[in-house]
């Protein structure tokens, strides 16, 4: 599909008829709709990041459940900081690599990796180890450093965040796999799946100044939802997050959560971090808005210990 044409038709229609319909004509966007898997959530504990993912994705019926042959996939880790992998400020590169390999095995045509970093993007891509890992697996690293790459979308149901500029690669790919790392966060208390979307948009300063928690929940209404969230809880930054100061901030938890429901995923992640999910405002807000389910008791969860 021609990119321009895509934008013109989708956004043109969106402005005219409301963005809910804006992408309606493009079935491929829904090709990997969640809900086709055996479980609502798979949680693994006790292995290496790649081995845990192998096991968990198998329980969900393999990557084929989410990625169809010939599709383009966006793998969106957290690469916010210019620090080494041991400090666990960025998603584990080994996990990113393994996810990409599974995507290609399932027949993906292209896999793209990007983040709108907080630190200098060139250094963050490099020092996080993710650039090397992703390229080794055959994925393309996409820069996110310039406003030029971001396109206006609207979020009709948003309470505070009614529009945002999102990276073009999210709009051009068929499947979105969200790969956050679980971390302590100084103001929202925790960052995982939902908060990882702050690296998809350009103007996150707006979120900070317009009720951060509400904006995080509002963004999750946007049509391009993740087909799968893989929450990296292998090394977890338990304090001084999201950037961390030194290794003392990190505890090895050797866990991983796979789910299509990011509210459920974040609820489980909060419990791993030892924080009451009710106290992380965006989780109950998102639950009330119907974005996902924070009542884990109502979900079909597969728990695996390695």
């Amino acid at each position, binding site marked *: 599909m021609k990119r321009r044409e895509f934008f013109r038709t989708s956004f043109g229609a969106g402005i005219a008829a409301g963005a809910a319909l804006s992408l309606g004509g493009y079935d491929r966007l829904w090709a990997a709709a969640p809900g086709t898997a055996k479980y609502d959530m798979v949680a693994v504990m006790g292995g290496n990041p790649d081995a845990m993912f192998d096991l968990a994705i198998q329980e969900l019926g393999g990557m084929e459940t989410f990625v169809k042959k010939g599709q383009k996939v966006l793998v969106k880790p957290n690469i916010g900081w210019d620090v080494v992998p041991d400090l666990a400020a960025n998603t584990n590169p080994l996990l990113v690599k393994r996810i990409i390999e599974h995507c290609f095995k399932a027949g993906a045509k292209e896999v793209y990796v990007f983040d709108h970093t907080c630190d*200098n993007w060139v*250094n963050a891509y490099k020092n996080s180890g993710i650039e090397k890992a992703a390229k080794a697996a055959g994925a393309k690293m996409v820069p996110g*450093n310039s*406003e030029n790459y971001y396109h206006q979308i609207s979020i009709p149901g948003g309470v505070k965040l009614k529009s945002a500029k999102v990276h073009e690669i999210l709009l051009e790919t068929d499947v979105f796999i969200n790969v956050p790392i679980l971390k302590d966060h100084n103001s929202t208390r925790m960052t995982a799946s939902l908060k990882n979307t702050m690296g998809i948009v350009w103007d996150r300063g*707006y979120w*900070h100044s317009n009720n951060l928690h509400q904006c995080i929940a509002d963004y999750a209404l946007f049509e391009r939802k993740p087909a799968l969230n893989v929450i990296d809880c292998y090394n977890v930054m338990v304090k001084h997050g999201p*950037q961390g100061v030194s290794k*003392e901030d990190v505890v090895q938890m050797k866990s991983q959560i796979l789910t299509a429901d990011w509210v459920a995923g974040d609820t489980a992640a909060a419990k791993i971090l030892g924080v009451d999910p009710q106290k992380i405002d965006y989780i109950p807000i998102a639950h009330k808005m119907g974005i996902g389910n924070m009542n884990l008791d109502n979900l079909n969860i597969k728990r695996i210990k390695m």
Partner: protein
Amino acid sequence: MTSSFLRKFRIAFSAIIFICFLAVFLDFRSLIPEKFINYLLFLQFVPSAIKYIDLKTVAAGGFMVVILLTLLSGRTYCSFLCPLGIGQDINSRIGGKIRKKFRRYGFSRPHTIVRYSILALMLGTAVFSGVYVLILLDPYSIFGRFMTYLGKPVILVINNFLANILGRFDIYTLSHVEIKGFKLAAYIVPVVFAILTGVLSFIKGRLYCNMLCPVGTLLGLISKISLFRVKFNESKCTKCGRCSIRCKSSCIDFLNYDIDVSRCVDCFNCIDTCPEKALSYSLLGTRSKVHEETKPDESKRKFIKGSVLMLLGISSYTRAQEKTVPVPKKESTVKEPRTSPVCPPGAGSIEFFTRNCTACSLCITSCPNKVLQPATGQYGLAGFMQPVMDYHKSFCSYNCTVCTEICPTGALKPLMPEAKKLSQIGKVNFIKDNCIVKTEKTACGACSEACPTKAVYMIPYEGNLVIPETNQEICIGCGHCEFACPVTPYKAIFVDGNPVHQAAKKPENKESDITTPVEFPF
């Protein structure tokens, strides 16, 4: 030597040097290692001399090599090593191609009073008050500013054009780079000098170098006793005058067999052009008179008008590239009470820094984060164009030491990453009355999130909210908090510069009592 080899060698050598300089200043992807930049800049006269006065080490002795070179060979520096000189040669050449007349120079008298006054003024101010005149007139720094303020935007436009095309095919090897302009005032100096050197070299060859450039004048004085020089073989000369017409420095008085060595830049064009091989570059020989005039004409005016418009166009284009950010509904009310600007890491103190920096802008163009901006008034009038940290534009990367490693004048001293992480260039200050958490009663924490040392941390506020608190002892003044703060027009957190840089305390950190889980907590 009388062969045309000398001229060809000069052109080849200077072309390589010039390309290296272009690469160093236009390298927006930080591909060139700092070491290479240091090698290239070692021989730049003014930066090296300033560094030597401060450090007194052989490592900063490039200018002495240049003096020796001048004693031996005359002003070869001006033709072989000076990027501004080589650039002017290229420009003269273009001028000659457009109008043959512009490449017919002829002999003229030296501007003795002007050039020696400027040299005296420069030496005088350098001894008594600092580098202020040099900031304007050091040829290397002038060239650096051309590249940073006028050349780089052009390269970025080309890069972005190509990146956009490649992006259509999902190729991201080139990435789009936002062109962030500087304050308008910062363009005044480079634009004025671009016009001055551009016009003079276009129609008058090396007039700028022989009238205004203090380095040219100084080396000219030294070359009066140089060993090798261009000289006439009076028996062979037929007084055809071709040499004099080709001389960019207008220093050949062929009627009297006299070449003014203080102005000769050893370009060797005369040797190449002489049909009788009556000119040679060899050991010793001198004497001096006569000149011709040219009238101004339309094409000159047109050219000047064109180039002025182009230069102004570049500066206004780059400024127009700045995009707007959505503004939160409430505006902050308390103006940041700044007492001092923040000067770059490695400077030691503002006083030392402003006395040693020639505003060549190499650090400004090399800074990966673009936090270094030309000062317009922060250091006072004398420090105009010297780099200053601007935390509204960007912030200083915790791990980065690029500016300290490449500074050719030693105004910034090299810092190891570990030393840089403890070098406090300013201190954080929090203005609670501007903070979103207080004014809007919503969560933010962008400042604390950004802080690499946790000098900004969050403490409980109302309900579930947390609000920033600062610890100046471990703050290094990187400005990431100020940059990240979403409040406008005044920030709720800002870094006030340390006039004298201090040592920050190393942040302490204890192991967490949270342990590795053995059971799923859900």
